[in-house]
């Protein structure tokens, strides 16, 4: 090891003292153990007992209500499927029109790509709702999308729905990527400024983050089904992946806000704008930084829970 990377002995001993002091400080001011726990437990037992005594009388009534709730649930999803079918048909017709217009040179390639993504989105939404309907018909319960949801009649509806989401996310990445390529070309020849380029790159980051988030969920789901993760670990890992994705997006926004702030700084210096605009941008920057710090603390806590579980 490079000797410059070794800590000084006095630093190690001083930090040990700080760690020890901090440990005692938290010990001294820790929340007291609840002395009334026994009393609360007794009340809990009484509540539970009375609930159980009343339960027998309502079992039959609950069964009827449950069957009715299932009927309502199936009817609701059926209606959603019909709406989605109409939407998919409409969007498909629009796509065919746009294709003809593009061939005739009336619309741009971007418009055509957007119409294709809209058609994919509508088709995948329809597919997702049909999966929901199948799951409800088989299980009699609301569709479950959590990582630890059980298989229903041998089928993995969670992964099937994620597959549909992945297709949409991939289509978005491809579309935004093409748009960013064009934006970069325009930026290189000076047709657009840094802010437009940053906005394009942010949109690409968002699309990629969305795709990666779906793929991460697919990996987690497979690992749960393989038995490599418990239900608690799978749910915690999902939460962690979501917080990490939020952090990624926030970092992109922070970069854009910083760039905006620096641009305003220059304009204030030459008197082109009022300083209050700079102040507003500074506040926005601080808000984003605070939000980022909060998410990082949340991530550290989740990591602690993950390693404990």
């Amino acid at each position, binding site marked *: 090891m490079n000797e410059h990377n070794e*800590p000084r002995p006095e630093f*190690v001993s001083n930090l040990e003292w*700080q*760690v020890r002091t901090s440990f005692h400080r938290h010990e001294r001011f*820790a929340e007291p153990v609840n002395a009334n726990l026994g009393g609360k437990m007794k009340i809990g037992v009484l509540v539970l007992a009375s609930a159980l005594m009343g339960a027998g009388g309502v079992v039959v009534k609950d069964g009827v209500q449950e069957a009715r709730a299932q009927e309502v649930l199936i009817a609701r999803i059926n209606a959603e499927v019909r709406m989605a079918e109409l939407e998919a048909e409409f969007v498909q017709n629009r796509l065919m029109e746009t294709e003809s217009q593009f061939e005739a040179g009336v619309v741009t390639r971007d418009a055509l790509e957007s119409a294709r993504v809209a058609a994919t989105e509508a088709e995948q939404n329809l597919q997702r709702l049909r999966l929901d309907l199948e799951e409800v018909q088989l299980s009699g319960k609301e569709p479950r999308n959590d990582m630890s949801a059980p298989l229903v009649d041998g089928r993995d509806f969670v992964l099937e729905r994620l597959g549909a989401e992945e297709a949409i996310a991939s289509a978005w990445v491809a579309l935004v990527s093409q748009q960013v390529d064009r934006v970069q070309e325009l930026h290189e020849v000076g047709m657009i400024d840094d802010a437009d380029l940053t906005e394009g790159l942010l949109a690409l980051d968002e699309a990629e*983050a969305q795709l990666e988030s779906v793929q991460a969920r697919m*990996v987690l789901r497979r690992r749960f089904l393989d038995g490599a993760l418990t239900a608690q670990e799978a749910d915690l890992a999902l939460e962690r992946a979501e917080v990490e994705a939020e952090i990624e997006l926030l970092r992109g926004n922070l970069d854009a806000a910083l760039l905006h702030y620096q641009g305003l700084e220059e304009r204030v210096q030459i008197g082109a704008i009022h300083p209050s605009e700079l102040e507003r941008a500074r506040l926005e920057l601080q808000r984003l930084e605070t939000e980022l710090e909060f998410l990082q603390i949340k991530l550290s806590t989740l*990591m602690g829970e993950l*390693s*404990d579980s």
Partner: protein
Amino acid sequence: MDESTLLKTYNDAVRPLYEYVSRRCGSDRGLAEDVTQETWLRAVVAWKKSGLPDKPVAWLKTVARNLLLNYYRKAPHISLEALPADWEQRLLGDGADGRSPDEAAAVAWGLARLKPAQSKLIEAYHLEGMKVGEIAAELGLSERAVEGRLRRARLKLRKIMKPLVGSSGGLS
């Protein structure tokens, strides 16, 4: 967690943590000590609340890494004049240990602007020396997927550094 467990963990982990931080900030002693200290103080609070994690060193390194990223992200005007033409080799090759604080700051500045998943990948492969297969197993991905992600991460890092390195940067 009792005091003796904490102190044993401290004695086992303080040097690996310091070395990790110091290597990432180009042996900048002041910064390495500040980050190591802050990491331990956060650890005491978190571990008192939720107990000692299974892998304390990994926990500490992650927190330290985030603190370093925050530090470098808040330094938007770092001078990159000192960055040599072979910066990529110095970051990604065997010379990473001998980087100056300025070079380390410049590289950390770039890494802090990558997506966390991308910077973690570059650090794991180039700085920690993990094999593609090991990373793939940890992330639950195929080796091909990891290689693709590494390639994209390096490309993005190059893009980020490009305007800052200048004509002598040797980047195309």
